């Protein structure tokens, strides 16, 4: 897959090594800033100053924590002149750039990588929606005006929803807030009101999107891989 370069963003950037080992390189002018999830900085110029902190006050920090992200947001500032920062996500996978233009984007926990000034990142308490899905759907909400970068495990595919679309909750990376969503059990997995094949079906919970907007899905998910590894764990002796 091709390298992605910026044309419209506030900060010149390049995404290389897609889709398996995607890396993000941003060029900062003196005084410019970029914010990121902790421990995703792979390398940077000596002109860049890194500062860890609870950005945006206590309430937003708590929100992010509920969203499954760290309390800490790292700030990179081109203090002593222009320079570059290279970000690499924790999982091997793909990376997508999205430009927020006074709209809102939701991201699955762990999908957020970095953002520029003007973006506001908070956790979103899902209420019944999130509770029902257990680990499946805890979202981060990005809004404002600026650039945001999110990552995946596996490749990322973009789906243009014009009516309705169903996505297994483990595979959701991000989606635009113009879409309505509902966490549900796949139709047909219920028989006579009972969860007949839900347990056997293995598809678990799905998110049903409706309306118009974009969804980004990942082609692999961490949980199925963990289920695969599980039988290889040693058993306790007693």
């Amino acid at each position, binding site marked *: 897959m091709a390298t992605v370069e910026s044309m419209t963003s506030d900060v010149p950037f390049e995404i290389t090594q897609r889709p*398996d080992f995607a890396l993000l390189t941003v060029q900062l002018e003196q005084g410019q800033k970029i914010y990121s999830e902790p421990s995703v900085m792979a390398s940077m110029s000596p002109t860049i100053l890194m500062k860890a902190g609870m950005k945006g006050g206590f309430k937003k920090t708590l929100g992010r924590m509920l969203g499954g992200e760290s309390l800490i947001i790292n700030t990179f500032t081109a203090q002593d002149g222009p320079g570059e920062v290279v970000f690499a996500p924790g999982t091997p996978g*793909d990376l997508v750039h999205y430009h927020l233009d006074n709209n809102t984007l939701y991201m699955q926990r762990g999908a957020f990588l970095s953002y520029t000034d003007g973006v506001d990142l908070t956790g979103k308490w899902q209420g019944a929606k999130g509770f029902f899905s257990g680990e499946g759907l805890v979202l981060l909400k990005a809004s404002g005006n600026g650039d945001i970068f999110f990552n995946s495990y596996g490749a990322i595919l973009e789906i243009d929803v014009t009516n309705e*679309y169903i996505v297994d909750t483990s595979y959701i990376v991000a989606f635009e807030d113009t879409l309505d969503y509902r966490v549900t059990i796949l*139709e047909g997995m219920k028989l006579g009101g009972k969860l*007949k094949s839900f347990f056997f*079906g293995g598809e678990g919970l799905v998110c049903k999107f409706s309306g118009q907007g974009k969804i980004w899905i990942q082609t*692999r998910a961490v949980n199925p891989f963990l289920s695969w590894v599980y039988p*290889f*764990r040693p058993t*306790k002796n007693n």
Partner: protein
Amino acid sequence: MRHEIMARPAATVLKVNLDQGESLTCEVGAMIAMSSGITVETTSRQRGGSGGIMKGLKRMFSGESFFLNHFTAQQPNQTIYLGPSLMGDVMSHPLDSATLIVQGSSWLASDPGIVIDTSWQGFGKALFSGESMFWVKCSGTGNLFVNSFGAIYEVDVNGHYTVDTGHIVAFEDSLTFKIGKAGQSLIGSFLGGEGLVCKFEGQGKLFCQSHNPPSFGKLLGPKLRPR
């Protein structure tokens, strides 16, 4: 039914377009996303065949879970995305009144025109119980989709060919085979880490994967806390 294989070769995903009335049988858990006009039905076997949930349940608890999800498009122009759980590739292999033996975890999806026989025990049951491997016999006409751990490479067997059992993705049933040891002595084979190999004979296609899932599992397992 049209299909597209995307994001090859490590994070490969299969996209299938289904028209109204068309259906696809898939490995349970492989569905990533789909249009809302597709319905799903779970069976423990190919529809019309014997089986039923209870028999399937029995198989599941004996470590041979084999539930199939049948996806059917109720509306025109529906799409479905399928992906395996491990990093690796996906291959399409059309069958024309032919039979392919597929390693259980490599079978991803197939046309309803292909009969899935999960009771095939050509290698002998006891032998593989430790490796938690099972095999699926796919016969009929239609498209068959298999996935691999790592890359897939094809071998045209003409005569004899030896493969480590963990590296087999699928093979044509025109091939005969014997299970044997890789080295001169059994102990030597195990010390050399090669374990059991499959010795193929005859003429036919063999599909291998670059990485061996049990080997990877055995590398990770001991580093984890006991369950």
